[in-house]
C-alpha cells in the first residue's frame, strides 16, 4: 500500500529530517512508528499525504508515485486517507458534528448519509453528547477523539494517526486502539506514530523505529 525508496526530506538545507528511508507497508497491515521527540515520525506521515515534499527518493501510495503528483490530484489522494493530526486541526468555528461531517461533505455524500455516519462515529468515540459543542469547548482528550472520529468517518483505505492517544487516559486509549483494530480488520491500512511504550508492548503490531530521521528498527 505504501512504499518508500531512498526517501530524503530536509526542511532546511543542511539538516535532514529524514534520511534514506526504505519502507514497505502491506495493504491491510497495522504499523506502529516510534522514536524520540523530533525523530521524524510526523514528517514521514506528512510525506504520504503530500503535506510535505520529499527532497529525494520515490514514494508509492496504492501503487501510484506521489512524488511528482499534480496539485489538482492531491485532493483525491487525501480522500482515501484518514489523518489524525498531532495537533488535531479541528475547525474551531464549526460544531463537532460539522467537523466530523467535513470529509463526507467533501466527497459529496448526501445530507442524510452524512448525518448518520457522523453521528455513528462520534458515538463510537464516546462523544455523542457533545455533537453541538465547538472544539474549544471540549477537553484536550475530547478534541483528540473528535480528530480520530473525523479520520475514521470516511472508512479510509489508509489511516495515518499521529500520536492519537497522547491526551487520553488508559481506558480511552485502549478503547481507541480497539476501534483502530476493528477498522484494520475491515481492511484499513494503519500507520500510527507514538511514543507510548505501553502501546508498543501491549499490542503486537509491527514496529518501525525512527531516530534522527533514520530507520533504526523495522519488524
Amino acid at each position, binding site marked *: 500500500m505504501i512504499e518508500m525508496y531512498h526517501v530524503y526530506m530536509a526542511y532546511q538545507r543542511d539538516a535532514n529530517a529524514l534520511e534514506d528511508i526504505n519502507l514497505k507497508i502491506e495493504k491491510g497491515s497495522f504499523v506502529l512508528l516510534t522514536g524520540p521527540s523530533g525523530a521524524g515520525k510526523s514528517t514521514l506521515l506528512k510525506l504520504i499525504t503530500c503535506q510535505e515534499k520529499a527532497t529525494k527518493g520515490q514514494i508509492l501510495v496504492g501503487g501510484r508515485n506521489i512524488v511528482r503528483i499534480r496539485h489538482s490530484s492531491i*485532493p483525491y489522494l*487525501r480522500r482515501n486517507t484518514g489523518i489524525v493530526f498531532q495537533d488535531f*486541526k479541528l475547525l474551531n468555528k464549526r460544531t463537532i458534528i460539522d467537523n466530523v461531517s467535513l470529509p463526507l461533505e*467533501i*466527497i459529496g455524500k448526501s445530507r442524510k448519509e452524512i448525518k448518520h455516519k457522523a453521528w455513528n462515529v462520534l458515538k463510537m468515540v464516546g462523544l455523542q453528547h457533545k455533537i453541538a459543542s465547538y472544539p474549544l469547548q471540549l477537553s484536550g482528550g475530547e478534541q483528540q477523539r473528535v480528530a480520530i472520529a*473525523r479520520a475514521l468517518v470516511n472508512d479510509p483505505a489508509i489511516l495515518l494517526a499521529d500520536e492519537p492517544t497522547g491526551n487520553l487516559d488508559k481506558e480511552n486509549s485502549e478503547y481507541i486502539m480497539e476501534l483502530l483494530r476493528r477498522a484494520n480488520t475491515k481492511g484499513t491500512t494503519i500507520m500510527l506514530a507514538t511514543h507510548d511504550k505501553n502501546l508498543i508492548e501491549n499490542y503486537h503490531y509491527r514496529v518501525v523505529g525512527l531516530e534522527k530521521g533514520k530507520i533504526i528498527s523495522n519488524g
Partner: protein
Amino acid sequence: MVFIKTSYFLNKALDNIRQNPFVNLIAIGVIAISFLIFSTFLMLFSNLNSLLALWEEEIQIELFLDDNLSGEKIDALQKKILSMANVKEIRYINKEEALSSFKKSIPGMDVLVKDLNNNPLPASFEIKLAESSKSFDMVKAAAKKLSTIDGVNDAVYGQEWVERFSTSLAIARLVGLIIGAFLLMATIFIVSNTIKLTVYTRKEELEITRLLGATDRFIRLPFFIEGILQGLAGSALSLAGLYLAYRIFIIKVSSSVQASLVTGTFQISFLSTPTITYVLFGGMALGLFGSFISLGRFLKV
C-alpha cells in the same frame, strides 16, 4: 465525479457568514461605505451634469441684421440659418422689440430714447445652438461663420461669460471623470483588500479543509458566493443609506435653493434605475473579484 448541488455551496456561504459575524460585519460595513462614497459621487455628478445642461440651454448667439432688409430676405435668412447643422432654434426680434427691451434693460434709458427721432437699434436673430455645439470654440466658430452671412451686421454671444462658463463645464466634467475613475479604483482596492483580510482570518480553516481532501473548487465556491453576498449586501446598504440621505437631507436643502438656481425648474434626482442596477452588480462583481484574488495564496498546501 460526485454531483454536488449549488445549493450546498450557497448554504455553506451563509454558514460561513454566520460563523464569522465579526469579520463579515466589518467587511460589509467597509464595502457599504466605499460604495456610499462612490454612489454619492455618481449622484452628484449626474445631477451636476443635468444642471450644467440646463444652464447650457441659455447660451445663445445674437445676430444683428443690416437695416432695411425686406421681409422675404429676413425669412430666407432665417430658413438658411435654421438649416445649418448646429442651429437648434432661431427667433426673430424686430427693431421695435429691440428698442423696447433696450428701454427696460437700463434704467434711465427711456430719457435717452425719448429724444431719438428714429430707432437706431438693429433687428436681430436670437439663435440657440444644438447641444453638441456648445463648447466655447464651437460657439465662437459658429458666431464667426454667422457674422459673414450676407445681411448680417454682427454676431454677439457674451464672449467672456460663455468662454468662462463652457471652460468650467469642461473642467467640471473632466475632473468628474477623473475623480470617478479614481474613486472606482479606490473602491476596488479597499473592497478587495478588506475581503483579503477576512479570508486571511480563515487561513487555517482553508488549509485544514484542503488537508481533508477538498478540491480547490470545493473550497473556493463558498468563498466566491460569500464575496458576492458581501458585495451585494454592502452595495445595497450603500444605496439605502444614500437614498435615506437623499430623502431627509438633499431634498430639503435643494428645495430652498433650487428656485433661484435656474430659470426653469431643476429637481435634484436620485440615481437612475440602470445606475442602481450597475451599482448592485458592481458590488457583486467586486465581492467576487475580491475573493478570487484573495484565495490563491491560501490554497498551496
